């Protein structure tokens, strides 16, 4: 599935938002911590033999008769890491025939974010995870690479389960450049809060795309008693009564507020969406991602 060309044109005008200044390897369009070739003046330093003479500030030499090298802020690539949840719970949507499953929206979101980053020559790495952290996909810095995102995420078969905390741990332990980390998940697991804090602790700008299916928000269950089957583990919770369904339904808005508060306190760009509600991808990316500080 390819992104619409009109949307891609609009995405090329956006950038992945970051609060921190990160340093990439290659020159690009994102301000970095490095001093060197660039446009914006940063500092002077004494000339040492071997320095490129083109960086000598001859105006200053005329005044002070000292050779000084002009330093500028170097613009490099921004490391963008997309942690995409590929667990079975992400296949849960409004129904078995629905195309708006959470994994579809997750893949689309990952592709859109990747396209924005690639348009700015940023370094994009896709990190799929389920029970464990899957093989990463480092995209070449060209816009056409975005097609690989879709292919990679669709073709992967990860072990069952959903362990976002384990994935976060594994990701932190792997060699990587600090940058922007966006977690795209339905958070249908325990330990998501610790995972987010771990990503923050690694001095990354963290974003969260929280995906929910309409059936999870509205709980349109009919009947008196239910045996609930976990989509990921296959575990069965027997004898859930209608009263318990109603109790959970009453608690869902409260849980959403708690998540919102958690992200705001930690400076996490949080986007929460219900699959199938605004099916418009343009609305998701241009309105929600920009409005919640994931893109700018």
């Amino acid at each position, binding site marked *: 599935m390819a992104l619409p060309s009109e949307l891609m044109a609009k995405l090329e005008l956006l950038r992945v938002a970051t609060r921190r200044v990160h340093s990439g390897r290659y020159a690009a369009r994102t301000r970095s911590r490095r001093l060197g070739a660039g446009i914006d003046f940063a500092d002077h330093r004494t000339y040492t033999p071997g320095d490129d003479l083109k960086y000598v500030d001859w105006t200053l030499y005329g005044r002070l008769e000292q050779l000084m090298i002009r330093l500028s802020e170097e613009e490099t690539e921004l490391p963008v890491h997309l942690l995409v949840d590929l667990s079975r*719970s992400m296949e*849960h949507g409004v129904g078995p025939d629905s195309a708006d499953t*959470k994994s579809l929206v997750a893949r689309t979101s990952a592709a859109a974010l990747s396209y924005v980053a690639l348009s700015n020559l940023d370094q994009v790495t896709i990190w799929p995870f389920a029970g464990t952290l899957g093989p990463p996909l480092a995209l070449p810095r060209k816009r056409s690479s975005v097609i690989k995102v879709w292919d990679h995420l669709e073709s992967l078969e990860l072990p069952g389960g*959903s362990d976002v905390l384990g994935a976060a741990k594994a990701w932190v332990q792997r060699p990587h450049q600090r940058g922007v980390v966006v977690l795209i998940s*339905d958070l*249908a*697991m*325990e330990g998501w809060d610790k995972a987010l804090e771990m990503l923050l602790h690694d001095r990354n700008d963290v974003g969260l795309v929280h995906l929910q*299916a309409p059936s*999870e928000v509205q709980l349109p*269950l009919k*009947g*008196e*008693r*239910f*045996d*609930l*089957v*976990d*989509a*990921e*583990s296959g*575990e*069965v*919770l*027997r*004898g*859930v*009564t*209608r*009263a*318990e369904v109603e*109790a*959970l339904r009453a*608690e*869902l808005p409260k*849980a959403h507020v708690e998540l919102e508060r958690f992200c705001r306190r930690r400076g996490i760009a949080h986007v929460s969406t219900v699959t199938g509600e605004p099916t418009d991808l343009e609305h998701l990316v241009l309105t929600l991602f920009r409005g919640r500080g994931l893109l700018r």
Partner: protein
Amino acid sequence: MSLLSTGQALGLFAVCALALVILFLLRRKSKRIVVASLVPWRLVVKRRVNPLWRALIALVLQILAVALGCWALVAGPEAQEALAEAPTFFIVDTSASMGPRLQALPERVLGSQAGLVAAGEEVSLVFAPGSSVARQQAGLLRVQAGQSQSLAEAVTLARALGAQPIVLTDQDPELDVAWELLGQGVAGDLAVLSLQASAGPGLPPEIQVVVQVANNGSEDAEIPVLLRSSEQEIGQSTLTVPAGQSLSQGFVIEPILGTWLSAEILVEDPFPSNNVAFGLLPQVRPARVRIVSDAPNRYLRDAFGVMPGVELQEVSASRYVDPQGSVDLLIFDRVAPRRLPQSPALYIDPPQGAGPFPPVGVAQEPAFTTWDFSHPLLDGVALRHVEVEQLSLLEARPGARLLAASAEGPVALVRDQEPKAVVLGFDVTRSDLPLTVAFPQLLYKMLIWSRQGMDTQVAPSIGTDAGVALDPGASALVRSLTGEGEWTARAGTARLGGLPPGVYTVQQGSEQRLLALNLPAEERPTLGSGEARPEVAQAALLPRGRPAWVWLVLAASALLLLEFVVAER
């Protein structure tokens, strides 16, 4: 109508209980649903409080409610069957007010299979259930109205015997028992409510009789009432009494022979025992007049001589003795006693300084200027033109009322309080008063005035006494003069009750007295005014309070409410 038999109810219960169990099992069968994650569900289920136990309790409550409902369907009919099968005891209230109603008792109980208990001063078994008619008739003869203080005990006794009691009474017994108004709804009851006889003050002697007759029927009635004494028939009068009302009729009769009086209704009605009332005849004697004078006064003698029923005595002043109330009128003609008598007295021209209102002066050839014709003594007496030769002016002492006065002062005074006294301040022989018709008129009025309140013996009226009060210190023999029988009361008995209306002599030791007894007015039955009301009797037969099935339905509803609270839905 029987809704369900016991077997049918058990079958219904089994079907319903089975259906409940199947539904319970079906409800326990859960729908399998795949959810994204069990994490939020586990948080909710963690707060679950033993749901299986709650479901089982709800199931038990449902089955219990169904059981109670099935029970309710058979409880009513079963109770009625039990009512029909259990031996029935009629408990008859034998209070005094039941007197006339007891006449309806044989019709109610004769020939039935029920037993009869009389709730009198003590509970007594009249006849057992299943008794023969002869035995029932013999037992009914012993049932008489009197005191009833043991109605509750009789009901308790009947229930203890496993019987179904039905109280036959004339009012709500206020007990949790079936009851029936005995004699209710029989039309046309007539009754003599009261009979009063008193001696009148007039001359010739007379007896005033007042009869009060009630018509408890639904239509106006012409009621013939026979008045008779113990010796002779006095007369008969027909009274027209509107429906549901009573009428008092007064009669004045001459003194007759006999000791007691009765008023009897001569038409038959359902309760003849209240058709007669008894009273004692008052003592009637001639009017006694005593003239005290030292000089014969033929005017006085002649005037009293023509009056019927007057016993005249003449004594001189020297032989005068205070009669101590044994005479109706004392006349002091130109004399006065040293001590004023207690009897009513007329003082004619008393000596100076004597009498209740002593003369204090003299007026020659006076003229009367004032007469008080509003006083009963002078009412209708033509005294306006009386001529007198000489008048004594009287001293008006406290209590005196002026009857006549001249220009010089009062000449005739009266004291209406006891001892009554009239003082005329002139000598009738020296006036033209004896020559006028006013003179006997004045004397007659004076005699009536003096007899007011005397010799008036009122017979015991209906309602004053329902029994005979006795001296507990001695045994008594109570004998009916009207043929009801004879009773002996042992020493220590203060009151003999339950006697039928009539005239009785009561002999205790050497003392013998006469009394008339009637139905007590305050306990007289208020009989229904006409149409029979079988629905009332039928309703009264039903047990009081809510039937069992109502309580069972309420209990089942309460169980269902509890189940609604307990069950998780």
